[in-house]
């Protein structure tokens, strides 16, 4: 749904740009970008986004640890994982940590939109 505020978390700037372009084209607002888990938690508190798109493999703090930290701050936080680490055990670990969906890299734009639309309603 247009107008929803999204925080993008990925250590690769070009990956954040790819996701930003897909979302912006579909009417979503990107309120912030973070390059690691620690910055993601800080920006989540500061910006209170409607949704977070979260990479797993990142320096400083990985994405699953960041999901746990964010859900501690806000048990209702909506987070979608976006990672190449698509092993079933890690998908389950992410969902148990509080993520609502999992996008496997490399992704198609439609998959990103489908996941985001499902959660932001």
């Amino acid at each position, binding site marked *: 749904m247009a107008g929803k505020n999204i925080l993008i978390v990925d*250590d*690769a*700037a*070009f*990956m954040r*740009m*790819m996701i930003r372009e897909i979302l912006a084209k579909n009417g979503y607002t990107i309120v912030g970008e973070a390059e690691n888990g620690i910055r993601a938690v800080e920006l989540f508190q500061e910006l209170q986004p409607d949704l977070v798109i979260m990479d797993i*493999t*990142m*320096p400083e703090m990985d994405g699953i640890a960041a999901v746990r930290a964010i859900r501690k701050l806000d048990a209702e936080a909506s987070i979608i994982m976006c*990672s*190449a*680490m*698509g*092993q*079933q*055990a*890690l998908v389950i670990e992410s969902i148990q940590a509080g993520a609502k969906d999992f996008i*496997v*890299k*490399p992704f198609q734009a439609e998959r990103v939109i489908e996941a985001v639309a499902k959660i932001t309603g």
Partner: protein
Amino acid sequence: MMKEWDGIGLQEEKSWEVLREAASIGTGNAVTELYQRTHQTIRMGVTDVALATAVELHEILGGGSGRVFAFSLHVEGEIKGRLLVLLGQDSAVRLQRRMQEQRETQGTAVLEPGMDALKETLRRMSKVYLVAVSCLTNLKIIGSRPALSADQLHKVLEKPLAGMADPEGKVLCAHTRVWDEERTFEGDFLFLPEKASVLAMLSSTGS
């Protein structure tokens, strides 16, 4: 630190980042393939990219003089270079054993001695790695018939590195370490693209 990359006018930081992410995505997909075969969760470190001499590469890979299994292939097409999967002797033997058990329980193949099951698994992982890089970059890539060798690290690196070094004797490498929860399995993925291929990756991803 936006140093120009000699010769092709690339901005080092930006191009290295695309390579880093491509290698990370390749490895992530390759270990998912491994997980489907072993049902053992594999963790993966942050990929590091470096322009390194053979000696420096040896250090990046943790040095050591033990026997290493190297699975290497030539990457051809719109990205050219080499892809290597390196396993220490213990990890290779354990993985081989696990693959063979898997085959026995599934009854899919006759129990074969030697390294066939390991080779097949590594071949699949390499293929999945390249397919993921190809999907990300929208560039066509073909992997050559892979070669499996077992020797000391500097020896197994010799052949794949031949012809890859720049005039200063350095190769561009993206290195990703993987391991299982109990650390009974550890491995290294090494992607060595030609510099011109990194330029192609950069422009195809719109960076």
